[in-house]
């Protein structure tokens, strides 16, 4: 189930990626108020051509439906970028998109 929207564009060897992951990102305070369980993305990773190109460990203070922007080199148009994230409950999402 693809829960992550990805835009990846290559220009002069630099790939700019923008992603939007669908996730409530409930922090401890918010979850208590909303009487829901705490859950947020804890680890977010992007891979291209079998190499990690972006990696971040995150806390509950990212906004709801977290948006991320990053750049990297070493990939070209038509290559695939894979975004993997894991949340506190262990849910995992893997999304793939071709670089344009």
């Amino acid at each position, binding site marked *: 189930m693809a829960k992550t929207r990805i835009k990846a564009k290559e220009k002069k060897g*630099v790939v700019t990626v923008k992603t939007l992951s669908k996730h409530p*990102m409930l*922090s*401890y*305070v918010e979850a208590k108020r909303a009487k829901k369980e705490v859950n947020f993305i*804890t*680890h977010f*990773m992007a*891979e291209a051509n*079998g*190499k*990690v*190109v*972006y*990696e*971040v*460990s*995150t*806390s*509950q*203070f*990212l*906004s*709801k439906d*977290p*948006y*991320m*922007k*990053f*750049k*990297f*080199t*070493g990939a070209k148009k038509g290559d695939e970028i894979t975004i993997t994230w894991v949340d506190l409950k262990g849910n995992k999402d893997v999304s793939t998109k071709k670089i344009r």
Partner: protein
Amino acid sequence: MLERRKFLGLSVLAFGVATAPVNLSAVNFRETKPNLWKATKVDDAIKELFGTTTATKGKIKLKAPDIAENGAVIPVSFETDLKASKIAVFQDANPESAVAVFDIPDNAIIDYGIRIKMAETGTVTVVAQENGKLYKVSKLVKVTIGGCGG
């Protein structure tokens, strides 16, 4: 009396440990630094992650709004030419300080953008580590809760 000895040719097996860099064994700082995410002060969190709080100011371009009308979505972006290996984002408005820790791969260009939440007005701090040295920039973000901005 002649004794014959048998010599055993021992063939030592050299275990070819795959030396190829295991790129996919990503560092999850939530597992390696569990205390970092519980630190309630920015300095404590920096110490937990980098082992020191001595940092040089500057060398990172941090972009964040002066006034955020909505504390739930604050765009924070930063770029740097440092060959940093780790970059971390902190703030002091929420119960805990750490927001995100980036592990920088070789071919990354450090021009990152994220959106964060802040419960109240506070300072956003970005710390980068290059060759064991720390660089730090901070910016105050005013959060006007429920207001119409201004």
